[in-house]
Every structure is written in C-alpha cells, then in structure tokens.
C-alpha cells in the first residue's frame, strides 16, 4: 500500500473503465438527452441569481395584476399576487432540485449503510436489519412523511428529513443483494484470509463494487424525491418563505387560489411540466447508466 505504483495503476484502470463506460453511455441517445436536459436545468437553477432579479419574488414589489395571462412583460403570466410565473418557476428549480438531491443522498446513505451491514454481518444483524427494512418498505411512506413534517418545524430541512427517512428501504435491499453477490466472490475470501478486518473488507472491496449500483439508484431516486417534495408542499407542509418557492408550493398557491376555476393554465402548467421534465430526465439518465453499469443487463 505504501508504493505509489499500485495506486496509480488502479487509478489508471479506473480512468480507462470510466472512459469505456462513458462511451457506452454516450451511445444511448436517451441518456444523452436526459443528461443534456439536466445540465441545462441545473445551470439555469444555479445561474438564477445572475440571469434574473430575486427581488421579483418579493410580493411587495410585484408589478403585475392578479393572475394576468401571458404577455410581453410576463411571458408565463402572473400568479395570485402579480409575480412573474416564469421567474417563480426558475427559482422553484433551486428548491426542488436541492431537496431532490439532498434528500436522495440522505436516503441512499442510510440505505447503503444498512444494506452493507445487513449483508456483511451474520444472521442476527442481517435478520434484524432486514426486518426493519421490510417494515419501512411497506409502510405508507407518504403518511409517515406527512406525520414527520407535522412534528418538526416547517422548512426545507424538515422536508429533506421527511423524504430521506422514509425512502431508504429500497436502496437498502438493493445494496444488500449486491453486497451478497460480491462477498461471495473469491477475492473477498482471500482478503479475509489475509487478515482483512470488517472495515477493510467493506471499505476497500465491497463499497467500491457496490457504488456504481448505488449511483444508478441515486439518479433514479432523485426524481421520486422531487415528486415527494411537490406532494408535501402541495399538502401545505413546505417551506413558508416566499423568497424560496418550490414547484410544489407554486402548485399549492395555484390550487388554493382557484387557478383551475379561473382557467389560469399559465399558472398551473409550468410547475407541473417542470417537475415532469426533471423527473423524466433523471429517469432517462438512470436507465442509461443502468445499462452501462448493471452487470446483469450487460452480460444478459
């Protein structure tokens, strides 16, 4: 381990593998389109403060009328207090994506840890952990998330927690299955025989082998987390700060202020379509990644 050459070798190998993977990924048009869309949306979200004026989110500075249809000044019309729907949708991307990413990371982290532990350690730990996992897997997670958001103070943090804490079980199962496959391989046996401890085996062998799968799962789960965020916000459990709108809270405002009755389609459609596009983009990327990384699909 002290000599730099094996490590460099390993890196070179990884680099080559990555290049091969990318080539394979790039051969799938769905994956490329999804990735392109994602990059575009993330860029827009990140650049929002530079390409638009956040002051426009402040209701006291809104210049439009109540639910004005699209016009030159407001390309997507205005909301119930006269703010630009386009601006809200742009800024909504920030919160929705943030919640999607962080909640997924949280849920995947929990899932990975539990999955690996359940597979790596013996019967009792495994049985216990898997029972808990099964339990959470079947629980109506939305009900649980609603309860959690009610118990805790309202805000982005709470939403992230509520989603993260209720959506990890499928990741745990996946990781466990994968870990079991990997631990059955001869080189793990060898490593154990050579005196590798639990930490060593997990950290050096299992984790790197499981990570690609985890990565795929993450990509797919972000979409679900974004939908979950919008649902919780729609039910009135989102962040109340008007300067931090999310797509879900926009839809809630539209719903509460009877955009359906008023026929204000410019108020109803953009947030929903934005959610749809982002989720679809993540799904496309995830499926393409899966095709690259999932050994079963590859070896078929």
């Amino acid at each position, binding site marked *: 381990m002290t000599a730099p050459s094996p490590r460099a070798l390993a890196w070179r190998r990884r680099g080559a593998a990555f290049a091969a993977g990318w080539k394979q990924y790039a051969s799938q048009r769905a994956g490329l389109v999804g990735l392109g869309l994602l990059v575009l949306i993330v860029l827009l979200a990140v650049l929002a403060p530079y390409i638009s004026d956040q002051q426009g989110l402040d209701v006291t500075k809104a210049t439009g009328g109540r639910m004005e249809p699209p016009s030159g000044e407001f390309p997507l019309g205005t909301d119930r207090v006269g703010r630009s729907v386009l601006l809200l949708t742009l800024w909504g991307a920030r919160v929705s994506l943030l919640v999607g990413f962080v909640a997924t990371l949280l849920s995947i982290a929990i899932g990975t840890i539990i999955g690996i532990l359940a597979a790596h350690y013996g019967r009792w730990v495994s049985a216990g952990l898997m029972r808990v996992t099964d339990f959470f897997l079947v*629980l*109506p997670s939305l009900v649980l998330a609603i309860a959690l958001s009610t118990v805790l103070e309202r805000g982005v943090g709470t939403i992230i927690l509520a989603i993260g804490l209720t959506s990890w079980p499928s990741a745990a199962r996946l990781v466990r*299955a994968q870990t079991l496959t990997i631990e059955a391989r001869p080189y793990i046996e060898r490593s154990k025989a050579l005196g590798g401890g639990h930490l060593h085996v997990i950290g050096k062998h299992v984790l790197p082998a499981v990570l690609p799968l985890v990565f795929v799962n993450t990509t797919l789960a972000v979409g679900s987390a974004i939908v979950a965020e919008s*649902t919780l916000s729609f039910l009135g459990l989102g962040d109340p700060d008007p300067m931090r709108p999310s797509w879900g809270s926009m839809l809630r405002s539209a719903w509460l202020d009877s955009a359906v009755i008023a026929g204000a389609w410019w108020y109803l459609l953009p947030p929903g379509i934005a959610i749809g596009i982002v989720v679809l983009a993540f799904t496309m990327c995830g499926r393409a990644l899966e095709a690259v990384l999932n050994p079963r699909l590859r070896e078929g």
Partner: protein
Amino acid sequence: MSDILTPTEDALAEAPPPTRGGGALRYVLTKIGGGLVSMALVVVLGFLLFRVLPGDVIQTMFRGRPASPELMAEAEERLGLNKPLFEQFLDYLWRLLHGDLGQSYVFNVPVTDKILERLGPTLLLVGVATLIAVALGLWLGTRSAWRRGSRFDRISTGVALALWSTPTFWLGMLLLAATSGLFPTAGIVYSDTAPDFLSQALDVAHHMVLPTITLVAVIYAQYQLVMRSSLLEEMGADYLTTARAKGLRDDLVRRRHAVPNALLPTVTLVFLHLGFVIAGAVSVETVFSWPGLGLLTYDALRVRDLPLLQGTFVVLAGAVILMNVLADVLYRVLDPRVRAS
C-alpha cells in the same frame, strides 16, 4: 418509489429461495412471524409518533373556546392523559387488542366507527384502480416485451414513464380543469340520487371516474415496466427455445409458458407497492374530496386528532403488512418452480 425502474432486483429479493418440500410450513410460519413483528413495530410506532406531535390535546378538544381549568382537568382525567406514558401505552395496547382504537377528539365517536365508515370508499377506489392498473399494466407490458423495440413498445413505455413522472395531484387538477362539467368533481354520490341500488351504483361509478383515472395513470406504469422486463428475462430462458423448437406457435409459447412465469414477480409487486398506491390515494382523495381513509388521515393530521391518526396509521400500515404476508404465502403456493421441488 424509484423501484419501478429496477424491478427485477426487488422481485428477486422478494422471491423465496427454493427449499425442499418439508420447508413449506416453516417458510409460511417465518413469513407470518415476520409479519407479526412488523405489526408490533407499527403499533409501537403509531403510539410514539403521534404522542410527540406538538400541541395540547385538551386545548385542541376545546378548540380555543373558553373552558374552566376544572373542565379541562376533568377531560384530561377521562382520556387518561394525566397518567405516565408507559401506563398510557399499556392502556392503548389493551384496548387495541379488543379492537378499540379510542375515541376521536374532534368527532366524539369511536375511531373504529370512523375508520369503518371510510374503509368502504377507499377499498372501492384503491381496489378498482389497482385492478385496472394491473390489467392495463400486464397487457401493455406483455405486448411491449413481445414486440420489444417496436413503435408500440416505445410509445407505451414512454407514456407510462411520463405519467409516472408527474405528481398525482397535478394530474388530478388537470383532469378537473379539462373535463369541467362532464363528471362530478367531488364526493362519492349526489345527495338527491334515488335510493335504489342501481341509481346509487351508477352515481357512485360516475363519481369514481376521475379519481380512478388519476390513480390508474400514476400506478399502472410500474406494473407495465416490471411485466415487460420480467417477460424479457423469461424469454431468454432455455425452455422457451425448446418449446419453440418443438414447433409450438409463437403466441402459444407466449401464453402457455412465458407469461405465466413472468406474472409472478409482477403479482408480488402489486402487493409490495400497496404503500405507494396508498400514497397516491391520499393525493387523489384530497383533490377529489373522496371520503376515504386517505382524506381522513390528512384531515386528522390537520386538526391533530391523535386517536384518529393513530387508528388510521395502524390500520393502513397493518393492511399493507397483511397483504405482503399474503403475497409471500401465495407466491409459495403459485410458483411452479417452488411447488415442483
């Protein structure tokens, strides 16, 4: 919720390992035992979770109306809220074992009554929607897999994914806006419909159209995708090649051999994903004011009716667990591979 896209892993993880004949009973017992443990967890979680909800129960009961401290103390005594937590838990357990879920603070009726009233509409909605979604999903999934890569495959998979990507409540709102006037927008039956069975049934069906379409649209994708991928996997199997080599017609091979085998993971998934369906039901019931358990849960949360919340939570979670145990046992009974060994 992301499981639909990696369906086979889930389904496989769920599949019981083929054991020798004598293990059957043991297997069933293990599954039932597991279900019981889960139920116990639900019961405990139900108690604890809603015990930490912020807010003063007694104040909630009086809804901010002026009430003397004595009156409040009396109410506290009556509800046993002045006892230590552990004692309250024992009380709760004891009553639960007798089918008593407590008294709703807001409605002043037994929670069990309240839940039974709402169970019917939810079962109807979720049941019909699940049936349609499964049927639709299986059919589309089979066709897509059989004509993998065809235009039909691409379109149907694309539509399924797109619908699955949209939030349930938004789909409901769009449906409401788009069909305005064609269908009732809320509730389950008009108050002035004739009381005979046929009129009532037709009226309920009429009210059900929009909620059912919304729920089906959101959930059928997972069945379709699982069916598609498990059928694809099945189609690579040797026995199908053999069957074809025997000279059996293509669609016969599909119906007799491939589809039945591919059905199993999908059927398991139906049960495994009931929690997801229930989540959908909460949104759908909220948008369409469908008087079911999902709406009751959400309304109970808003007014913090603890016994009612506890009740709906325990019943919903319990039902899902029960269904899962059933699915496991059924799987065991149905899977020809398991049966044969």
